[in-house]
């Protein structure tokens, strides 16, 4: 039974540090073998999770949601009011999106999402999180110098724009709705969705204009 004993677990971590091989792949291989032998893990389920998040669940889902919001004002309104219900209309609810909130970029506002304490991310709509999102550098700096971080992503934010950083400290998850770029009037949902980058939905990309060069 779980002890909920912090000191005990800190001691276990030090023991693991001293005894585990340093190579992560070897550590994971041994763990997987042990769990299978103990009857706690089905290897085919591991394969299936990987396939699902490689082939199907990823930022294309978020892009479709954004494109729909751009083209359909009633959907946009529902997305702002209750993002979990709105993505459920497309069958996209699931891992980590029971309490989803969509925040909109405007001419005067830019939104940026981070989890300073761990790595919270809306998986069922954006897929697995990028490594940089989970890295010390981004977690430490996004709340304190968001403009400097955005500049590293090639995103320049005007002095007159308010940067709103969302630190995911509870079970709410955040989806940034980027601004619809000019020159896309009359585009259908699929064509619009192709413009929406994963980073734009985290907030580390801003200008999605179709003609721009060097886009991330």
């Amino acid at each position, binding site marked *: 039974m779980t002890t909920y004993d912090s000191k005990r677990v800190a001691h276990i*971590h030090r023991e693991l540090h001293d005894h585990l091989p340093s190579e992560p792949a070897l550590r994971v291989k041994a763990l997987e073998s042990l769990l299978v032998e103990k009857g706690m893990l089905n290897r085919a389920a591991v394969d299936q999770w990987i396939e699902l998040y490689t082939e199907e669940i990823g930022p294309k889902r978020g892009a479709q949601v954004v494109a729909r919001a751009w083209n359909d004002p009633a959907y946009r309104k529902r997305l702002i009011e209750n993002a979990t219900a709105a993505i459920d209309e497309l069958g996209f609810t699931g891992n980590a999106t029971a309490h989803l909130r969509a925040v909109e970029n405007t001419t005067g506002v830019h939104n940026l999402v981070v989890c300073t304490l761990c790595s919270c991310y809306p998986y069922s709509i954006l897929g697995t999180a990028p490594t940089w999102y989970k890295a010390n550098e*981004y977690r430490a700096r996004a709340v304190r110098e968001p403009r400097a971080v955005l500049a590293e992503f090639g995103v320049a934010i005007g002095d007159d724009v308010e940067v709103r950083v969302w630190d995911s400290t509870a079970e709410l998850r955040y989806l940034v709705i980027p601004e619809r770029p000019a020159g896309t009037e009359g585009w259908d949902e699929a064509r619009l969705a192709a413009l929406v980058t994963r980073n734009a939905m985290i907030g580390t990309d801003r200008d999605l204009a179709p003609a721009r060069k060097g886009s991330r």
Partner: protein
Amino acid sequence: MDGPHDLGGKRFFGPVAVDEPEEAFHSDWEARMWAIDHAIEPAPGWNLDWWRHVRELIDPVDYLTRPYFDQWMQIEAALLIDSGVATIDEIVSGKAATAGPDLPPPLGPEEVRAASKRLTRYDRADGPAPQYKTGDAVRANAVGAAGHTRLPAYVRGRVGRIERQCGAHVLPDAKSRGIDRAEPLYTVRFEAEELWPEARAADAKERRACVYLDLWESYLEPA
């Protein structure tokens, strides 16, 4: 707790590695570790808040230097050892010396899709009513918590405003000790000038910014 995980606002970390390829997984072992975590019940009585706390308890040097999914491996190993499901020798060798716990069969491949769609809610309809309303000024606790908490150090003692009420959500500080207790949760807006002294002067261009955090009622006092 004051630990290496509480990174918000810590200075002189280097540039963000922005040129990472956009792919679901960067290596086979990372993919397998991510998926193992989704396919097992590691320990009787575990929950997500305890899982996060177990990560925070990784040796500080390891926490800041080991690869992300390697930390997941170490979390699962610690959960198994702590609950008596496995020994450290078994974790190192990958060979079971004793039978596993008496649990239902593990998640099968045909159950994965349904599991990926499962919504885990953390709000509780019967939780207590909120004390603060939108627009109220609140000060975050100045003193840190001894155990797991979701109040980052960088907002301690700082004044913000309630942006919205979020209903009553399970309190991580209690849940990480195995106690399911809901408390009103709020989204609170803190201005950059309040959080970062240098934003008032030297780094003026970062001034037009604010940080929103989701904070539980016991993290706050009236300001």
